[in-house]
């Protein structure tokens, strides 16, 4: 991965017990966590609770952060998504929410605005562009729109196994591309 390893970031300091690190993590990544919470939660009050839960999770798991493996922003997104997926599943079990099918966001990231969200978003957007259209589509429906694999299969008329294959290969390819740091050409032709 072609980037500097920063071991003085908020997560490393959080793991070391630095009392000011949490404040920095909220300042630097609060927007990221908030946008995720708003996407996953039906009501604003739930999103506010979720933010608190996510930062509690970060406080507990900061020691697992490895700056040589992925940037802080990726680790925080991962922890936040896990928590939010878990909350969503609980709500679905209780029947409190309908599946958030096909809720295309109004303010979804568009090509060209990644720069203002940091180099990670820019690199990720470039890597996504290298995925096949099918991979991009199912991953966007699953990860951004919150659809289950079965819902995607229904919505796209694709066999469930095909949806799973696109997702698996797309995620593997995306990770390879961001690790290489050179997502520079057009879409791959692999399925």
């Amino acid at each position, binding site marked *: 991965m072609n980037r500097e390893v920063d071991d003085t970031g908020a997560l490393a300091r959080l793991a070391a017990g630095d009392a000011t690190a949490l404040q920095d993590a909220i300042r630097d990544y609060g927007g990221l966590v908030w946008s995720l919470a708003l996407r996953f939660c039906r009501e604003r009050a739930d999103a506010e609770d979720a933010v*608190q839960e996510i930062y*509690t999770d970060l406080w507990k798991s900061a020691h697992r952060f490895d700056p040589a493996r992925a940037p802080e922003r*990726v680790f925080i997104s991962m922890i936040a998504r896990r928590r939010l997926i878990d909350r969503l599943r609980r709500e679905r079990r209780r029947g409190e929410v309908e599946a958030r099918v096909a809720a295309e966001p109004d303010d979804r*990231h568009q090509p060209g605005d990644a720069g203002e969200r940091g180099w990670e978003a820019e690199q990720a957007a470039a890597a996504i562009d290298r995925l096949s259209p099918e991979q991009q589509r199912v991953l966007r429906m699953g990860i951004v729109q919150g659809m289950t694999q079965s819902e995607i299969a229904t919505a796209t008329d694709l066999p469930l196994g095909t949806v799973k294959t696109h997702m698996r290969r797309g*995620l593997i390819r995306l990770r390879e591309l961001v690790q290489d740091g050179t997502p520079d050409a057009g879409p791959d032709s692999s399925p």
Partner: protein
Amino acid sequence: MSDAAEQREQLDELLVQRAVEGLDPVDSAELERLLARTGDVDPDAFDEAAAWFWLGAGDAEQPLPRAVAERTLAAVPAEGGGESRVTPLRPRRTRRTAPWGGWLAAAAALLLALAGWWPRLQPGEPPSPAAARDELIATAPDLTRVEWNSTDHPRAQRLAGGYVVWSDALQEGYMTFRSMPDNDPNRHQYQLWVFDAARSDQYPVDGGVFDAGEDREVVIPIRTRLPVQQAKLFAVTLEPPGGVVVSDRDPILWVARPGTES
């Protein structure tokens, strides 16, 4: 396809599903079992890739409201490091039970507990764990009994058998193990985790730390540190001496899932 390839494909499928939409407890247990059997897998790789995807294609970031930031800052340091004890920022609006429902349930549970435990309130020697277990079996109004299933971990395979009994109403339960593998308490101890349908699967309730003992049949009382509303899975892990607050679930040795008994 070879068994190993088939197992790897199933593992990848579960990891992708976890990364995109999450897993139910049954699939979570299966994932843990497969991970325990497969040493060269990076369990976070797909979650990490999904996080990258969100960064590149997700919603534009919006500033975190100052009030939310301040409440989070005030709440998190006091709560970290233990079970999930997040304080709601405001009263939940989605509560489905009547306000007095909890009190009735508590009162009923207390009556049941007093009825069930009455003999033990008498002066004299406390009952043995085996006797207390048998008494629970005889008196609990909602008894769950489920056999242990061993994972493929070599230590787990040495267990001859056993079962869990548990009552949500009485908040009482016992684990029975036959020919339980020895453990050196200075190196590691067993720890029980109770997955509660009312809680996040990420934070199962600590059911207590224990050792194998010397008897062929060992009965261990379950000592949950938090109330369990509806136990849906019991899992025993091997942990450092004294146990852990949050387990990395490696290795999981035995699992008992209510509702799977024939």
